[in-house]
């Protein structure tokens, strides 16, 4: 059984947000509801302030607090390590959003994240979907939270479950450079122009991602909270993983 994970090399990431766009297209996201986001933040103050960026998908944690708190088991950990939402069980209580330390979950029924127009009204659906975007993907699987979602449920990054689940069993790495595996690789990994993302099996010691984490000191976001993300970051000389939520420091 695989334990799918991702490695993001911050030395290579240019903050171009192609991953965000690819994810939105692949998963028919509403404008502003970014399952995969590139967070920009300030480090330090004038004159030594730095503008930094940090790509952030769902961490698909080993100990997901969102799964533990869900009163209905609508959100669950799949066999191969993905954290998913069953849209047919979700009651929309939003407890998982409260419990997620990474802010990667979205309630599907909100005011537009950007000022407007409201895409849900412009592309209104009449078939149980919350909207009917003009660029729907072919995959739709409400049991695994894939596709255009119904109203009043919680949605999140699936690690492109609809692609990854079809990969040949025993695959160690889903390398988009390999034409045979490309269609099974998550959209953000396929599209990343500098090749900063790697996707593979964390439980396989021979996978490239396991080697990279070991050889290049892979670290995890907000590791002190104990969720043990399955997304690792390589910092090298160029990048840093924020240790906190990046709010301005407390004024004494």
């Amino acid at each position: 059984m695989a334990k799918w994970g991702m490695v993001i090399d911050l030395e290579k990431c240019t903050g171009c947000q192609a991953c965000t766009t690819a994810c939105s297209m692949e998963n028919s996201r509403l404008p502003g509801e970014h399952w995969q986001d590139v967070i920009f933040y300030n480090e330090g103050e004038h004159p030594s302030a730095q503008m930094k960026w940090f790509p952030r998908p769902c961490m698909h944690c080993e100990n997901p607090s969102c799964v533990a708190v869900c009163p209905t088991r609508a959100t669950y950990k799949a066999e191969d390590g993905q954290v998913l939402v069953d849209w047919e069980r979700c009651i929309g209580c939003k407890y998982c959003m409260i419990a997620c330390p990474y802010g990667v979950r979205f309630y599907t029924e909100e005011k537009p994240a950007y000022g407007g127009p409201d895409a849900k009204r412009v592309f209104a659906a009449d078939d149980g979907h919350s909207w009917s975007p003009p660029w729907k993907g072919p995959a739709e699987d409400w049991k695994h939270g894939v596709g255009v979602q119904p109203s009043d449920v919680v949605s999140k990054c699936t690690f492109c479950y609809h692609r990854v689940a079809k990969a040949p069993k025993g695959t160690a790495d889903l390398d988009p450079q390999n034409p045979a595996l490309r269609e099974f690789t998550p959209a953000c990994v396929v599209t990343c122009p500098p090749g900063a993302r790697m996707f593979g099996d964390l439980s396989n010691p021979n996978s490239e991602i396991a080697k990279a984490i070991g050889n290049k000191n892979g670290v995890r976001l907000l590791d002190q909270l104990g969720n043990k993300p399955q997304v690792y970051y390589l910092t090298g000389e160029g990048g840093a993983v924020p240790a906190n939520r990046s709010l301005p420091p407390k004024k004494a």
Partner: protein
Amino acid sequence: MRNKTEPQTLGELLAASVALAKDPSAAGRWFLGSMAVLAASFAFVLYQLVAVGHASFNTSSDGVNWGMAISTYVFFALTSSGLTMIASLATVFGFKQFYPIAKRCIFLGIITLVAGFSVLALELGHPFRMLWTIPTGMQVMSPMFWMGVFYAIDLVLLIIKFWLMLKGDWDSPLSHQVGNAGFVAAILASGMLGLVFGSMAMRPMWYGSFASIYFILTAALSGAAAIIVTTYMAYDFDRKQMPAELKTLASSNQFTKVFAALIGITLVMIVTRFWTGLWSNMDGLEGFNMLLRDPLFHVEIWVGLVLPFFMMLSPNSGLNKTSQLVAAFLVLGAMFINRYEFVIGGQLVPMFKGNWTNSLIAYTPSAIEWALTVLGVAMALACYAYGEKVFDLSSTPSGKAAEPSGAVRAAG
């Protein structure tokens, strides 16, 4: 004024409801008025939910996920638990001087819990799904699961206890067992509601077992305030109209002392919570600074808690009817602000959003969220007016309270 015979079948209860609506008395006007407000707010909420959907709430994935509807639910649920605790003074712990308010406490415990559940159900995306997803999921890891289990048990026990009281059974072993179990259920339910928030290590403004203790003890305070307000309301805010036993309790310092102690405990808990929140440097506690700058917080502390505390401590004004009423109203308002400040405050620090959401969250309740709060209050008031008129809520095991009693039971 009062019905000598209380309705006990469903048909009789409904008939009493119609009779009350036609009744020109104060209770009838209260009932009609709050039913009208209830109907209007419910219609508005339904219209918003159908026409706009849950987008009509001012909650967002970037910031406050749980808005005022949740804080209203917490307010009602904890008030219900508190009322059960106050009733338990007489029914569990045997302080017989508190018998005259026990039945009213139990009735109010039922209706505040139902009002809270109603507000919560209208906030949920798919409330009816709970009926099959919770039993088939059995997610025992979730504090919310246990909160639901304990509050459901609490509600059933409250209803059984009230029904037994209606039948005049206050002191049988069965009635005692139901009372004891109901007290335990109310403690577990309010404590578990605290853990819904207290388990969240990623939100340090809530995190810790303190949240449970805080909810249990402050629940007792809102229950005490609610029973003072409603007992006076039942007698047109006039102590002279009260039956003898109740009048004895109202003009003795027994209840005043309990009330003052509960306010004091609440004040200590709030001060210690804010002290650690403002002093500690841990990431995620920044919201305490913002709450301190909020005028509502100071209304809650100084007007809603400190002032009533001193009023109740003073031996002269503590026994005064107006003081008791004013203090109880102020405390009830303060506790509503307190629940709001707790629920919203804990979400002010955004989760990992960087410069997309780079400061503490601003949140203002939307029209539908206000309407849900109004709906909860109107529902509780309508049920209360009905209960006062139809059931003899001041009765005690020693006899019907409405009947003039020659021998006033000595307090203590």
